[in-house]
């Protein structure tokens, strides 16, 4: 690891100021993505701004029909929360399937959403549920937030404070884990919401998480697993690598969509 200076600010303002004054600063949350990247010399921030000490950055609460999750809340906390299990069980289930137990004890929802890895799980839930990303300075709708693999609407020194998830009528997530890394080879999050059927796909596309309009249209007419069969799933723009080629991923999108819809009950 290249030298770096560690800071643990007590407030969001100090964290933003720290990022602004650093030559090349990075936020540190659970460290489950950033530290492995730094160990491999793929990232070399001059300063690390640890946000875990900031009051109010972690925790889960329900405000009417909205489930609010602080950015520094760990995957294990989301998976184990009775509030999440009651409001959006699919989200608790998604969190319980991220990586492994040790990763879930450290990794955070804010870190995952900030990173926007094209094979990460959370982005699919954020997009399908139409969540709002609340930062130190504004609110960003999920549909405006994800801008391609590892790209988001976050500006320089902008910090995610919390995520607000409107409760869907029903939702389910089906993931085919990459057997080596446990990340999603393909993951499909299906939500039956006030705005209609929402289907977000992760793991498949070269441009990161996306909503599948064909699947949404089919489910709007007939919310059943059989409705998925008639939908054309194009593999254009899908990733091809040693783990799976684009056509295989396209097939997995269909299979995972079927499983998610079937799991809605």
């Amino acid at each position, binding site marked *: 690891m290249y030298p770096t200076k560690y800071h643990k600010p007590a407030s969001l303002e100090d964290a933003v100021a720290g990022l602004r004054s650093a030559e090349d600063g990075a936020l*540190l949350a659970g460290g489950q993505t950033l530290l492995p990247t730094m*160990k491999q010399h793929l990232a070399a921030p001059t300063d690390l701004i640890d946000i875990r000490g900031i009051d109010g950055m972690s925790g889960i609460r329900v405000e009417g029909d909205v489930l609010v999750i602080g950015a520094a809340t760990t995957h294990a906390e989301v998976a184990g929360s009775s509030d999440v299990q009651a409001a959006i069980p699919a989200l608790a289930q998604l969190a319980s399937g991220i*990586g*492994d137990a040790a990763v879930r*004890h450290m990794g955070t929802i804010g870190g995952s959403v900030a990173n926007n890895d094209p094979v990460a799980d959370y982005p699919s839930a954020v997009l399908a549920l139409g969540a709002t990303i609340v930062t130190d300075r504004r609110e960003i709708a999920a549909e405006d937030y994800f801008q391609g693999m590892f790209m988001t609407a976050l500006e320089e020194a902008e910090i995610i404070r919390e995520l607000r998830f409107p409760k869907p009528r029903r939702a389910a997530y089906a993931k085919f884990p990459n057997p080596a890394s446990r990340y999603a080879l393909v993951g499909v999050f299906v939500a039956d919401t006030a705005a209609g059927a929402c289907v977000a796909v992760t793991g498949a596309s070269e441009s990161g998480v996306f909503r599948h309009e064909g699947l949404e249209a089919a489910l709007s007419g007939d919310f059943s697993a059989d409705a998925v069969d008639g939908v054309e799933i194009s593999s254009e723009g899908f990733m091809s690598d040693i783990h799976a080629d684009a056509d295989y991923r396209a097939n997995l999108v269909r299979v995972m969509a079927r499983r998610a819809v079937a799991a809605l009950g």
Partner: protein
Amino acid sequence: MTNVNLTVNGKPVRRDVPDTTLLSDFLREDLRLTGTHVGCDTSQCGACVVHVNGKAVKSCTALAVSLDGAEVTTIEGVAQGRELHPMQAAFNDHHALQCGFCTPGMIMSGIDMVNRYRAAGKDLDAETIRHELEGNICRCTGYHNIVRAIEDAAARIQGADAPAHAAE
């Protein structure tokens, strides 16, 4: 350099460490607690698992400076004197190791999962144990005896209703 205060296996520890020091290096190099192993540099093998404030974490993926005030338990801290922790005893009885490289991490993850399932009042069956061991790689045993050992230890701990953490 930053000054950190930790409690490691019940003993207070105070050291100046470079900000880049991983908890695994701090334990092995500074404290000479070499039971915590480092088997990869991609955060995937789990040989380095220790408990921080009672939870299993990969010590190769945490900075020592970020853990000021934390309680850390390593494989050296789970036995009570000469009496092995039930998880260690079960690994011994079931021949759940060959080269032993992954074993400290397996045992720390095993104790963590037994604690979590006990706290939640949930059963820890063989299939669940396999799933829970996703973050611990063994290159020798084929996992069967590891799963048996954890299952047996879970039953012993449940039966004795003894505290699952000796040092926490």
